[in-house]
């Protein structure tokens, strides 16, 4: 059995007096597609942001690909990670944001090529060739020269996906990537994600309120509530036969709100 690519061990995180994550532990296997669901404020975004090093932990340990994320070993001692260690660890991880976070002053092509050229020293020609392949994959090869402001939300999000993929991370984090989109634009982004799941062996963690998509996409579903994983299992188990009362209550509410499961 291969080793987990992500090992979260009893981490805690507070904002002021408010404990968002409370001794959270989880493991993710390489290539696994994970859906994180749960009520608003349960800590789903926070755990993704912690994995992307956008938020620090107060306690616990995280291992990515066999190495400590927030600690480094020096002479058998565990020290807090410095910026160089974090930069090394970030190479393994990419993230797509709810609001795309494209660089508005750069065209689509430059959005995608900037990081590979700066952080990996890839030559412009090679970076642009790879960017064109990725833009083609997300169906936006004809928009390479467009500015972000000229794109629809769905197109922006597909560019953001291509931009994150350009660094070839082993792990991709998606935080409610369709929740800011008009309903008719959601499907084009979900299609790209389906394709990614089918064609790559990347490990993917997805926070979503699209239960139907989570069901089809995920190998495993984690149900979060109040900073803890209350229940986890195969999509069918969680969506059809939830064991925990809180999971049942949450799904009932979602269905009542008109979401397909």
């Amino acid at each position, binding site marked *: 059995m291969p080793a987990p690519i992500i090992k979260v061990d009893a981490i805690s995180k507070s904002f002021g007096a408010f404990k968002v994550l409370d001794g959270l532990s989880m493991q993710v296997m390489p290539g696994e597609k994970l859906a994180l669901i749960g009520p608003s404020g349960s800590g789903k975004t926070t755990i993704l942001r912690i994995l992307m090093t956008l938020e620090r932990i107060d306690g616990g340990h995280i291992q990515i690909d066999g190495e400590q994320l927030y600690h480094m070993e020096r002479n058998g001692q565990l020290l807090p990670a410095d910026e160089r260690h974090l930069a090394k660890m970030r190479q393994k991880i990419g993230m797509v944001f709810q609001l795309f976070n494209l*660089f508005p002053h750069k065209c689509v092509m430059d959005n995608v090529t900037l990081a590979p050229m700066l*952080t990996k020293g890839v030559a412009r020609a090679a970076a642009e060739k790879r960017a064109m392949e990725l833009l083609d994959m997300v169906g936006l090869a004809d928009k390479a020269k467009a*500015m972000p402001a000229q794109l629809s939300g769905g197109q922006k999000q597909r560019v953001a996906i291509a931009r994150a993929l350009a660094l070839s991370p082993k792990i991709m984090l998606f935080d409610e990537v369709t929740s800011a989109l008009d309903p008719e634009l959601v499907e084009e982004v979900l299609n790209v994600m389906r394709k990614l799941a089918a064609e790559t062996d990347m490990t993917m963690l997805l926070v979503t309120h699209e239960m139907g998509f989570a069901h089809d996409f995920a190998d495993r579903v984690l149900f979060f509530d109040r900073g803890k994983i209350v229940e986890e299992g195969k999509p069918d188990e969680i969506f059809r036969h939830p064991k925990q009362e809180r999971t049942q209550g949450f799904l009932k509410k979602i269905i009542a709100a008109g979401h397909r499961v």
Partner: protein
Amino acid sequence: MTQWSGYLGLILQGALVTVELTLMGSVLALVMAFLAGIGRVSRFFIVRALATTYIEFFRGTSIFVQLFWAYFVLPFVGLSLTPLQAGVLALGLNVGAYAAEVVRGAILSIGDEQYEACTALNLGRWQGMRHVILPQALLVMLPTFGNNAIELLKATSVVSLISLADLTFQAQVVRSQTGSTLMPFASVLVIYFVLALIISWGVRSLERRMARGLDGVRV
């Protein structure tokens, strides 16, 4: 009539000196503004402290005093400057201190999500600043930079106090030689005003050029 055109020539010579001072002073001010403005948001305490000291010192003492120091006091520590050099130094450092706060404010006005995208793409702090934050912040700075440049233009007249023959200085010369007050002062009024207009117009067209594409208008 020929006499008047001779005097007008004097005034135009002065205008040239004023333009020269404004241009060179603005270049120095711009350099100082970016150094101190970026220094203000550095993660190193000592850099922040240096930048803050510079800004507070040059905003807190008057441009007259700064100019007199540059011209009359620096020679005592072995640094003799020409009137033009002293003028550029005092104007550049003074206006640079104000513009540094503009740079800092513009950097801070860029949303967290841009910084987070930089982190997620593993850009270093300086790479993100240089390629993502500053280009967007520049657009925020430009209008205020225009004001700073006009302030600098107007402040150039202080150099007449160290006998640099700028626009204001030449107007006084012409006035004392002709006894006419209206002609020299009317001309310098118009010239300062036109120079300020040119700066406004230049900054605005630069702003338009840089904003192209950001708002979804086809480029």
